[in-house]
């Protein structure tokens, strides 16, 4: 698959995971694409700079550059929306009132701990709301291609990049497979490609197991 196609497949699969009525925060990158696959499902998008009820990007006509999302892109708002300040916005996030956060990652380890803010060998001068979202959301889904551009697996035995927090994520939707994280660690929930468990294990570099609820029909 082309890179953009992979991204869309991941976004679409995550959209299926969201439930009617949920409060959802979508991170920058693939997570942002999830909103395009929600169809009729009413989920309420929160953006940490102070809006619940974010709508699609504006047309040129109704562009308002003060009305932006956390990625600083212009957005619109829905009629159910509300605006609030940054302290209250992070109160919503950290206090456990966001049902699902969908986040990009650099790495996720086999226990579900993620690294998504600090690129190695580069000055680390940005964290934004990444750590608050990992810590506070009721459910965290990570969205990423399974392999970095240099071919290394983002699913790792131990993080080599800096951790975003001690909170374990719930789900990792990649272009090859969907992984769940329980007390027993990572398990394969679904294959997204026509690939065997052995082949996938070889690719990531360690043995993977199916989850009890593995769905082979997907």
């Amino acid at each position, binding site marked *: 698959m082309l890179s953009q196609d992979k991204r869309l497949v991941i976004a679409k699969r995550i959209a299926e995971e969201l439930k009617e009525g949920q409060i959802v925060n979508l991170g920058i990158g693939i997570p942002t694409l999830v909103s395009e696959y929600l169809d009729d499902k009413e989920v309420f998008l929160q953006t940490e700079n102070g809006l619940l009820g974010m709508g699609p990007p504006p047309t040129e006509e109704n562009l308002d550059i003060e009305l932006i999302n956390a990625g600083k892109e212009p957005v619109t708002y829905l009629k159910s929306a509300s605006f609030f300040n*940054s302290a209250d916005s992070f109160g919503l996030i950290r206090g456990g009132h966001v049902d699902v956060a969908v986040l990009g990652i650099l790495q996720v380890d086999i226990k579900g701990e993620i690294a998504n803010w600090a690129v190695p060998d580069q000055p680390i001068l*940005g964290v934004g709301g990444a750590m608050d979202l990992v810590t506070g959301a009721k459910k965290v889904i990570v969205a990423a291609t399974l392999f970095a551009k240099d071919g290394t697996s983002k699913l790792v035995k131990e993080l080599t990049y800096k951790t975003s*927090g001690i909170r374990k994520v719930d789900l990792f939707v990649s272009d090859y497979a969907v992984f769940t994280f329980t007390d027993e660690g990572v398990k394969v929930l679904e294959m997204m490609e026509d690939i065997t468990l052995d082949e996938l294990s070889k690719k990531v570099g360690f043995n993977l197991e199916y989850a009890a609820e593995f769905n082979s029909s997907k």
Partner: protein
Amino acid sequence: MDKVIESSEIRKLFKNGDQILTGGFGLSGTPLTIIDELLETDIKDLTVVSNNLGDLGQGLHKLFMQGKIKKAIGSFFSINREAVIAWSKGELEIDLLPQGTLAEAIRCGGAGIGGFYTKTAVGTELAEGKEERVIDGERYIFEKAIKGDVAIIKAAKADRLGNLVYHTTARNFNPMMATAGNIVIAEVDEIVEVGELDPEYIVTPHAYVDYVIQSKYSKVGSEYVESR
């Protein structure tokens, strides 16, 4: 009482070494006119508390390029290439905080709270050197409140007493910054008479605001343009 002054009058309110709390996320809700006035002064060695250091070469970015900023406290500086370089060379101090921790620390500074315990960043590099405490079985780290000498903020409307309302996501950090500055200057798009703002909907009560100035910037398409 009338807190509205000419923008040039604010220059005298700053001094070398001040800690300046600045509202805004990206450029949305950033007091661009106040920053321009600061550029006209010879004030230096500023510590700036702000989510980011401007964007697209505007706002605090200009203040930084003029060499007025000694230290920045905020959550996201990565996109400011010049700031990153200055930091690498040891010419700029940076305190990096998670965005929610930053917002809460400023709120505490304005509300007489000395510090607080947050779950965010526990176990990460940003928790290094910070006190950890277990409360009801969960791990938290201690963060101190943040206050400033001057807070510079941007609102949509002010009445002449300094009551403020905001516009959409341009609200962001502004209401907290307004509570935590010794001197508080609000730049606004529109100044109205007392009584024109609904008491139920005022976000920042006038008690927090010392001076109000008319913004010289307007939104034109995808840009903030100096127009007045």
